[in-house]
């Protein structure tokens, strides 16, 4: 017997569960289907638990530098099991939080593997057998998973994905991280702080390749200073695992191949969408060239009544983009006219040490797009609060259109920048120009003053340099 709903959401990650809550607010009878944990990867195996790990690493790092602050900390050590346990506790707490939110919003949670069997009908394989749900509208929010390297299939023992890296069977002594995107760099940073010897191999000519070039350059220098080995323009050719560890053949930027020994490998070479079991082909739902689901500005697929949001669709593959799309899709379903997503106004954050945050166009992309640019740059060393914190590493860069004063992009690296970027994001969303940013009063003493100074610098009016 099929249960009937106004909306079925497949997947309960930050896209799916937010969509379900919004639907409930708009009076839609909603069911959410989840095969594993409410909250999805973000909350159980991604954003949140990694932040818990990185916080431990940060505290540990500060303890090691206690003397810099006139403090003494002796015999300090890290207990990886306890650190991981704390991280799992955080994930668990939030998972319960989402469970509570579903209940509060009277959303039916169906645990099991969901498949769209026909337009308006979802079959869920639950523990008790198959359950059938019907609804006029369906949102696919099944997310994505780590992409495998064909020659380095993750086994959870020596070769890890992010997921293994989050609950490691043991502390790696010598770690190879393949890929220097947000995930790779965050784990590299974590294990480096925890005391592992870390090598990062990146195929592109710089680390964090989506960020502004100056950010990449600065980060690479900083990571090297922390003791990491960074190989850019390099590729891992083969990997052999043994009981003792891993032998990797790496070709460096000059084309020279050499064999290196590691204890463990983390593969972080991107994601692939979870589309296989959704029923896309049967329904004729169109994928894009990277097999993500194609959607329009209102998150509609080419099949009426079927929407898709988050990582299963085109990038950027970020939790907050998924959540925002969830709201857009539901409001469109409810007959509203939500605003369309502008990818240039989606901020991105990487929680390595030092942190990276950015929104909008990089300087190079802005020039590529034909903008005549004005660029501002202000270093942490010029900021009183940064000096007081003992965090003098980093800078804030802003990119403006020289003619119109449009804020095209902002790029930051340094302590707490992930908490600063939303200031520029609000500005961009409101279509600010340099004038409003200059006219804004920034509180003293804060790191945010650098945001002001960076804008002033772009117009040759910087005060504290």
């Amino acid at each position, binding site marked *: 017997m099929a249960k009937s709903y106004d909306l079925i959401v497949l997947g309960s990650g930050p896209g799916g569960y937010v969509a379900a809550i919004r639907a*409930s607010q708009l009076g839609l009878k909603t069911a959410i289907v989840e095969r594993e944990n409410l909250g999805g990867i973000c909350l159980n195996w991604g954003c949140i638990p990694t932040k818990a790990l990185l916080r431990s690493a940060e505290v540990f790092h500060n303890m090691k530098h206690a003397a810099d602050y006139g403090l003494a900390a002796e015999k300090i050590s890290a207990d990886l099991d306890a650190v991981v346990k704390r991280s799992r506790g955080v994930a668990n707490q939030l998972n319960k939080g989402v469970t509570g939110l579903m209940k509060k919003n009277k959303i039916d949670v169906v645990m099991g593997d969901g498949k769209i069997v026909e337009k308006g009908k979802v079959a869920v394989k639950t523990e008790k057998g198959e359950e059938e749900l019907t609804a006029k509208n369906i949102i696919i929010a099944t997310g994505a998973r780590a992409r495998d390297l064909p020659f380095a299939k993750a086994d959870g023992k020596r070769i890890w994905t992010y997921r293994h890296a989050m609950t490691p069977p043991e502390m790696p002594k010598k770690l190879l991280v393949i890929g220097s995107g947000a995930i790779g760099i965050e784990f590299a940073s974590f294990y480096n702080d925890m005391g592992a010897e870390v090598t990062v191999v990146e195929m592109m000519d710089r680390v964090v390749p989506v960020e502004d070039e100056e950010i990449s350059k600065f980060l690479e220098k900083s990571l090297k200073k922390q003791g990491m080995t960074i190989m850019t323009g390099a590729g891992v050719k083969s990997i052999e695992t043994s009981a003792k560890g891993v032998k990797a053949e790496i070709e460096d930027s000059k084309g020279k191949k050499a064999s290196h020994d590691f204890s463990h490998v983390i593969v972080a070479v991107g994601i692939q969408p979870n589309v296989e079991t959704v029923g896309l082909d049967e329904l004729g739902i169109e994928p894009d060239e990277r097999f993500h689901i194609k959607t329009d500005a209102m998150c509609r697929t080419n099949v009426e009544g079927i929407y898709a949001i988050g990582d299963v669709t085109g990038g950027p593959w970020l939790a907050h983009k998924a959540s925002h799309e969830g709201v857009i899709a539901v409001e469109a379903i409810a007959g509203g006219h939500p605003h369309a997503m502008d*990818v240039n106004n989606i901020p991105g954050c990487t929680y390595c040490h030092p942190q990276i945050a950015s929104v909008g166009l990089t300087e190079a992309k802005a020039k590529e797009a034909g903008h005549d640019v004005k660029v501002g740059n202000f270093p942490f060393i010029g900021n009183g609060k940064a000096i007081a914190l003992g965090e003098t590493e980093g800078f804030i860069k802003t990119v403006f259109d020289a003619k119109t004063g449009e804020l095209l992009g902002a790029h930051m690296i340094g302590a707490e920048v992930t908490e600063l970027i939303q200031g520029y994001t609000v500005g961009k969303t409101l*279509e600010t*120009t340099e004038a409003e940013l200059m006219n804004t009063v920034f509180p003293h003493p804060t790191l945010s003053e650098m945001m002001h100074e960076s804008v002033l610098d772009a117009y040759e009016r910087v005060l504290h340099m």
Partner: protein
Amino acid sequence: MPINLQMPALSPTMEEGTLAKWLVKEGDEVASGDLLAEIETDKATMEFEAVDEGTIAKIVVAEGTDNVKVGEVIAIIAEEGEDVAAASKGGAESGESSAEKPKKEAPAPKGEEKPAKLSQDVTPKVTDPAPKGDAPASDGERIKVSPLARRLAEQKGVDLGALSGSGPGGRIIKADIDAAEGGSAPVNSQAAAPAPAPAVTPAPAPAANDFDIPHTSEKLSGMRKTIARRLTEAKQTIPHIYLTVDIQLDKLLKLRSELNATLEPRGVKLSVNDLLIKALAVSLMQVPKCNVSIDGDQLKTFARADISVAVSIPGGLITPIITSADTKSLSTISTEMKDLAGRAKDGKLKMHEYQGGTASISNMGMFGIKNFDAVINPPQAMIMAIGAGQKRPHVIDDSLQIATIMSATGSFDHRAIDGADGAQLMQVFKELVENPLGMLA
């Protein structure tokens, strides 16, 4: 807390409307999506749907009320469990704007089982009742525009007043300037994959506060924009005064058929309107105080009567001009008019043929319109609105007879033309039409 139901803005430009009909009454329970009322704007009658659920505690604005400003409280809804009687008293006073609402409501759902309450502002579905201060009110115009859009408009010479914004609450954003300039597509398209929009889905209207009835949207044509701008300008800047006379038409109709009989060999057939054009032109020359235009701090009085004649064409209206209509023969006027109207319909008028004129005439008689008040065509100072010639009971020499009567209403720019002068023009016009031989001499 009782919910104040506000007059919705059913289109981005709507400032007020008529509450045509209530579809609910006090005491009715309503759920989200229920039809509450029919609201008329100058353009259309639209249905107003409920967003909140509850009980109609009080209807504040009675049906049939005209000119209800957007944002005005029109009814009060008591939420579930609230005392309807109390709500009907309390709700209206608070008069809070929708912008304030979320703040006050936000803490409420905490710890409650109830799903978060839907207030008018959270859903774009029905409307986004603009807070009063934001509406482009007649007092002090405030254009909502992003800083970037304002600067781009300055740089590109785009008139912000002529744009309607597609941002939240009708805010003009960069994409609107780009569109106005014929530049690149709106920002939105960057996020859009090649849209497989199903054919049945109405175009997603950009305006946040657009209405949800299936509709089609098309961009305003240049002519429509001009009409909109000029008529708005006229009604907003010109204090109109309207003077109506009833005119007996029988003699003019007789003269016309006699003239047409003699003109037939020349291929000319006079219309009633041709005669009225001439009559208006002659009247204007006789009452020069009405053949004027206000130009800044000067009053111009024209030495010629050029009559702009309203011609309905596909997609709008245009006013070709009969110059010096006071001195032209009826056959000339008729021939010229036929040529101008024909070319107007083909869109082939030259600019000087429809720009200028000292006064206008608009005839809706062929549609059976008894009489109407026309909008002055600035910078002119008067327009004559002609109704249908109809057989009506008419008192002639103290006895009730049947006569062909036509009502004509002159709209005058009251800044330039005093009532008495306008009245004199109407009198002369009536005299000429009733005794048409006077305009032949």
